[in-house]
C-alpha cells in the first residue's frame, strides 16, 4: 500500500515537472485549510482539478482557472465551456473510480452525501480533496477565497469577492431608498408537484432581506413544502418561480396566474411574477450577484 502511494506520488511529481516545464517549477509545498477545517498540503502549482458541484465549477471559471478543470460534476452547466468537459457522477452517486481516472491533483466537493470513506479513498489514490460547502453569502466568499488560494489565484478571487460585495452593497443602498418593503414568495416547486418554498437560511431569503424585501415564508426554515392556503393568506406582492419552462403548455408565470383562487393575490393582480430558472439565486457561486440584480429589478422596477 505504502509503495503504491509512493509510486503515485512519484508519477504526480513527474507530471508536475513536465507540465511545469515552461515556467520555473514551484517546488515549495503549501498548506490550505478547507471549509471543513481539514488541512491540505499542496505541492507546487495545481494544474489538474475536478469540481463536483456546479457552484465550485462556476467559481473556477470566474477566477480564470477554468483551464485547469479536467472533469466536472454532472450538474455543472455554467458557463457553456464547462459542458465540453468530461462529466462524472456527483452527490449521492459520486463515483471514486471516475474521478481517479481523470488523474486530477485536487477535487473540489461539498459535504452533502460525501462519506468520509470516499474522501479517504481519494486521498489514498493521491487526489487531494478540498471541501467547500457554503450555506450563506459569507460562505460563498469563503469558498471563492479558498479555491483562489488552492489555484494560486488569490488576486482574481479577491476581485470576484469585492465585485460581489460591491454589487450587494449598491443594491442594498438603492433598496434602502425605498420605504415600502415588498413582500415576496419564492416558489421552488409548482402546485402540481406540491408547493415548496425557500425559507430562512436559503440564498433566496438572504438576497430578499439584503434587498429590503420580506420573504413571506421567512418563518419557515430551509426548503419546505407548504400549504396553498398559506400562500393565499400571506398574499405576497411578488412571486419568484424557479420552474424551468419545458417549451409546451403555459409558461410557469402563466400557470401561476391561472391558478384558481390565486386571482386575488396582489402579485397576480399586478402581474408581478418572475421566472428565475437560471439557478443564479439558488447556487452558491459568483452569479448570486446577478440573481440579486434581477431580483432587485423585479422588485423595484429599476436596474
Amino acid at each position: 500500500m505504502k509503495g503504491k502511494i509512493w509510486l503515485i506520488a512519484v508519477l504526480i511529481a513527474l507530471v508536475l515537472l513536465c507540465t511545469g516545464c515552461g515556467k520555473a517549477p514551484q517546488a515549495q509545498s503549501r498548506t490550505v485549510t478547507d471549509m471543513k477545517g481539514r488541512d491540505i498540503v499542496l505541492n507546487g502549482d495545481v494544474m489538474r482539478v475536478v469540481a463536483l458541484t456546479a457552484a465550485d465549477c462556476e467559481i473556477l471559471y470566474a477566477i480564470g482557472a477554468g483551464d485547469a478543470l479536467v472533469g466536472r460534476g454532472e450538474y455543472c452547466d455554467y458557463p457553456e465551456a464547462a459542458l465540453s468537459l468530461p462529466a462524472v457522477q456527483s452527490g449521492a452517486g459520486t463515483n471514486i473510480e471516475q474521478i481517479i481516472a481523470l488523474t486530477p491533483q485536487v477535487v473540489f466537493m461539498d459535504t452533502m452525501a460525501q462519506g468520509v470513506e470516499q474522501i479517504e479513498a481519494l486521498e489514498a489514490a493521491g487526489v487531494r480533496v478540498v471541501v467547500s460547502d457554503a450555506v450563506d453569502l459569507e460562505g460563498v466568499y469563503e469558498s471563492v477565497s479558498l479555491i483562489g488560494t488552492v489555484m494560486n489565484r488569490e488576486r482574481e478571487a479577491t476581485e470576484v469577492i469585492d465585485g460581489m460585495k460591491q454589487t450587494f452593497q449598491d443594491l442594498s443602498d438603492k433598496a434602502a431608498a425605498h420605504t415600502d418593503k415588498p413582500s415576496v414568495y419564492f416558489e421552488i416547486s409548482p402546485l402540481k408537484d406540491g408547493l415548496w418554498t425557500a425559507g430562512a437560511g436559503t440564498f433566496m431569503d438572504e438576497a430578499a432581506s439584503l434587498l429590503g424585501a420580506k420573504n413571506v415564508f421567512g418563518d419557515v426554515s430551509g426548503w419546505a413544502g407548504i400549504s396553498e392556503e398559506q400562500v393565499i393568506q400571506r398574499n405576497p406582492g411578488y412571486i419568484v418561480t424557479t420552474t424551468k419552462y419545458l417549451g409546451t403548455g403555459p409558461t410557469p408565470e402563466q400557470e401561476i396566474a391561472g391558478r384558481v383562487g390565486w386571482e386575488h393575490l396582489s402579485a397576480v393582480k399586478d402581474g408581478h411574477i418572475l421566472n428565475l430558472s437560471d439557478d443564479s439565486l439558488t447556487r452558491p457561486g459568483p452569479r448570486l450577484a446577478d440573481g440579486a440584480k434581477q431580483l432587485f429589478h423585479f422588485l423595484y422596477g429599476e436596474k
Partner: protein
Amino acid sequence: MEEKRQRESYGLWTWIGLAVLTLAAMLIAVCVGSVSIPVGECLRVFRDALTGTEASDPGTASILLAVRLPRVLCVALSGAALSVCGAAMQGLLKNPLADGSTLGISSGASLGAALAIAFGFQLPQLPFSGSMILAALFAFGSLILILSLSYMLDSSFSTNTIILMGIVYSMFVSSILSLVVTFAPDKLKQITFWTMGSLEGSSYQNALVLFVMLAVCGTVLIRLAEELNAFAIGEENAMNVGVNVKRVRLVILVTVSLLIGTCVSIGGTIGFVGLVTPHIIRLLTGPNHRRLLPASMFGGAAFLTLADLAARTIARPLELPIGVVTSFVGAILFVLIYYKVGRTAR
C-alpha cells in the same frame, strides 16, 4: 323474509351514524385548515357564495371555495373509492391483505405518473396533465399484465396466484421507479410527491371525475355484492351456487382497477386506506357485502378526510404528504383492532 327486513332496518341507524360521521368529518375539514378561519366567517363565505353576493374578504373566500372545499371533496371521494375497492378485493380474493397496493395496481399507476414526470410527457390542450393520463393507463395495463401472467401460470385464476403476481409486480415496479429516479435525479422530488400521495391542488373538475367514476364503479360493485358474498365463502362455493366465477371476477377486477387508476391519477398512491377501512367497517357491519361495500365508502371518506386534515395542520405552515399520515395511523389502528378482536375471540 320478515327477519331479513328487520335486520336491514336495524342497519338503518348504522347508515345514519356513518353518514353523519362522514359529513361531520368533512365539515370539520372545511372549517379547520392550515389557515385558521372562524366558523362564523366560514358560514358567511358559503352564504355569500350561495346567494351570489360579492365576498367581503376575497382572500378568505378563495381559501375556502377554491382551495379547501375542492380538496376536501376529492379527499372524501378518493377515500370512499379506495375503501370500496379494498373491500371488494378482500371479498373477491378471500384475502384480508388484498388491496390496490398489494395487487400492484397502485404501483403500476405511480410508475406511469413517474415516467410522465421523468420524460416530460405532456399532451397540449388537454385539461389533464400527462402524469394523470399515464397513471390511469398504467393502472389498467398493470391489471391486464398481472391477470394474463396469472392466467398463464394457472388458468383457474386462483386467488393466491393473483396476489403473488401482484406482489412480485409491485417489487418489479419499485425497482423500475428507483431506476427512473437514478436517471432523472432532479425529478426525485416530483416523483416522491406522487408515490407519497397528496391531494394538494385538487380542483372541482377532479372532484367531478372522481364522483362520476365512484358512482359508476361503486354501483357495479354493489350490484355484485351477492356474488362477492359467495366468493368470500370460497370460489368452489361461488361456483356451486351458480356464479359465473371467471366473468364476475373479471368484471370486479376491471372495475376496481379503473377506480384505483382514477384515484392514483388525481392523488398519487395513498396507502393503507383500502386495506384498513374495510377491516374496521367489517367489525360494525359484519361480512355481508351488501352492507360492507356502502359502509366502507362512508368509512373511507371519513378516515381519509381526517387524515388529510392532519396532514394539512400538524406542521403548519408546512404540509405533510397524506400517505405519511394514513400509513402511520392506519398501521397502528390495524394492530390495535386485531389485537382486541383476537383477544375477545380467544
